[in-house]
């Protein structure tokens, strides 16, 4: 049987991906350029008995998806720049309380209100450093409509598997462009459910590390009574300031992600085998980069593309290895050097890193990247 | 007939010495002993339960 095919916008695909992953709760607040996700969810969720709520503000939406997740739902919110800034308080809460949920953030011009309809890639640092304190961070950066669909499913899976919030961050171009999308059959893509406790309610501890770094999470209303707080806590969920426990718990929370980098990091290598000049790019910029690489090859330049699909955790190991073989990196991005700085740190001076930065609301075009290749070759 | 006296249990480790039970007892059954409440005159107790009801610290249990 032929697979179901559609012509969809990135944001619409994100909503469809969430539904495939079993999302049954959405809370949001209107914001350009991500509102289509809320619109689709408001129409589709009740059809399958799911819940949609438009909250009074961005913070409220983030709070509601944490509450919903704690009551056993798979939850999603969508937002953009200023909304992401507002949500940071409770993204930190979800990290420390270890509540799975997915935040879909469309990157637009910033800071502040910036350019609501202009594309940008300047929220990637906010995904890791936006909320205060040390915490795990997973951020996925799709480059197509199909990939947005797939990465939203993966975001739910990672969130449930590691009991932590996960961000999906397309830039505005990916979120608003329309492309052909092929839907997987039900069951074709694995959908991960969170591990729930098997112990008796009296024995249950919400942060019981005897089950490993990712303790089982019970749902409120499932017979288990337990306490959840944003304070540093012990295994039973109650606050503590005992130095050894706080240190161990913080390290465990970060280790959930940093200790599973190979499972979480996803990237694409394009024409890298003999590449001398490697473009490191993500989102819509990676599409220009691929075009530029193809053009460069026609002109005899040994160019390749390393495309980030997971931005956090960053594919440090892969880029470090690559840096020992190549002449130069080019890092085009719609910000003033966020990924560039990370790449520079990772490659330890093995190869020069040349950034191409745009924050004028215009995409980086292949010609700019090709010119840079010629300049540095 | 001999009057059956209630039991007033004061959990000293919960008591924070706020005086509320002493002040609002209508028959002056309780007093402060240092920083904690204590029973001074059990015979006067009319089992109104005001002390148990008002104690903010879950420190008083009256059993009639």
């Amino acid at each position, binding site marked *: 049987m032929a697979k179901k095919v559609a012509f969809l916008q990135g944001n619409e695909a994100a909503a469809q991906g969430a539904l495939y992953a079993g999302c049954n709760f959405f809370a949001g607040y209107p914001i350009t350029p991500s509102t289509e996700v809320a619109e689709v969810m408001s129409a589709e969720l009740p059809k399958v008995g799911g819940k949609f*709520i438009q909250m009074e503000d961005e913070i409220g939406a983030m709070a509601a998806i944490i509450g919903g997740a704690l009551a056993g739902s798979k939850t999603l919110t969508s937002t953009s720049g200023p909304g992401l800034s507002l949500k940071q*308080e409770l993204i930190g809460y979800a990290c420390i309380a270890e509540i799975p949920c997915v935040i879909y953030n469309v990157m637009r011009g910033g800071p502040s209100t910036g350019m609501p309809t202009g594309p940008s890639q300047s929220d990637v640092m906010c995904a890791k450093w936006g909320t205060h304190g040390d915490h795990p961070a997973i951020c996925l950066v799709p480059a197509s409509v199909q990939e947005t669909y797939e990465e939203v499913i993966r975001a739910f899976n990672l969130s449930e598997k590691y009991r932590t919030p996960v961000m999906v961050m397309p830039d505005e171009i990916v979120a608003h462009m329309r492309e052909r999308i092929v839907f997987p059959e039900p069951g074709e893509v694995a959908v991960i459910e969170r591990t729930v406790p098997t112990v008796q309610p009296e024995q249950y501890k919400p942060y019981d590390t005897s089950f490993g770094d990712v303790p089982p999470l019970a749902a409120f209303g499932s017979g288990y009574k337990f306490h959840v707080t944003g304070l540093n806590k012990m295994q039973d969920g109650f606050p503590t300031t005992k130095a050894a426990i706080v240190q161990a718990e913080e390290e465990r929370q970060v280790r959930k992600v940093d200790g599973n980098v190979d499972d979480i990091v996803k990237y694409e290598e394009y024409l890298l085998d003999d590449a001398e000049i490697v473009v490191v790019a993500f989102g819509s910029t990676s599409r220009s980069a691929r075009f530029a690489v193809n053009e460069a090859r026609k002109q005899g330049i040994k160019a390749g593309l390393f495309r980030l699909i997971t931005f956090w955790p960053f594919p440090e190991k892969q880029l470090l290895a690559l840096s020992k073989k190549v002449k130069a990196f080019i890092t085009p991005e719609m910000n003033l050097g966020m990924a560039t700085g990370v790449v520079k740190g990772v490659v330890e001076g093995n190869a020069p890193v040349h950034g191409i930065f745009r924050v004028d609301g215009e995409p980086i075009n292949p010609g700019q990247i090709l010119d840079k290749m010629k300049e540095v070759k | 007939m001999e009057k059956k006296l209630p039991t007033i249990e004061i959990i000293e480790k919960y008591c924070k010495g706020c005086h509320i039970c002493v002040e609002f007892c209508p028959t002056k059954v309780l007093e402060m002993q240092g920083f904690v409440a204590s029973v001074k005159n059990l015979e006067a107790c009319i089992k109104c339960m005001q002390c148990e009801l008002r104690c903010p610290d879950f420190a008083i249990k009256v059993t009639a």
Partner: protein
Amino acid sequence: MAFDYEKYIRPGKLPHIWCPGCGHGIVMKGLIRAIDTVGLKKENTAIVSGIGCASRLPGYMDCCTLHTAHGRAAAFATGVKMAKPEMDVILVGGDGDGTAIGGNHFIHACRRNIDMTYIILNNKIYGMTGGQFSPATPTGAKASTTPYGNPDAAFDIAKLAIGAGATFVARGTAFHANQIDKLIAEAIQHKGFSVVEILDDCPTTYGRRNKFKSVIEMMNHLKEIAVPVKAAEKMSPEQLQGKVLTGVLYKEERPEYTDEYAKVIERAKGAK
């Protein structure tokens, strides 16, 4: 017969953190008696709070308890209730948490009329941070950040709740201890968003700055200012000067949010 509060308190959690003479413990006891009266199941009851002294209350309760971020209790609780409408949801918090940083979530929970009970322990001050003025601090009062007297006007929290659309609004005081459980029980049984404001004392950070010589004086002050709504009907505006109405202040029947959303699900399924 002594009431068995321990049935609802997590073992080993007492004594609580509240200061000597703080009325929060009196309110907690009222809440426990109300839960017992109504017959709520502990494992099916979510108690949600924000940040502050009052917000530590859920940690003592042997239920599903959620100590959230400052001001956010109503929004977290909305998520819990939407996901599991069959759960009983109770919010607890202070005046600053609920009406300053949490003011937006508060009024919108009132407007939605989502079936939860919100107990606001109003001690007119930010206690945990050392006594800064809150939106409930009276004009002229002293706080650590109003050393020359408070220039701000105070919210009437119950009126705010009524104006925002809460369908059950009551007020009690920490002095009127035997009324607290009755107000909360009625609030829990009411279908819709219920607000119970309990006027409370903070001897540590409010009393000592505002010429209250003792806990007892603060408690007696609550006794003096409180006027039951029925009694107030027979009083003149002059007699009501400086008084605060207590009891059930407002009650109406209006469609409840999760019920309405259940209808949305039916309509959506029909439209498929």
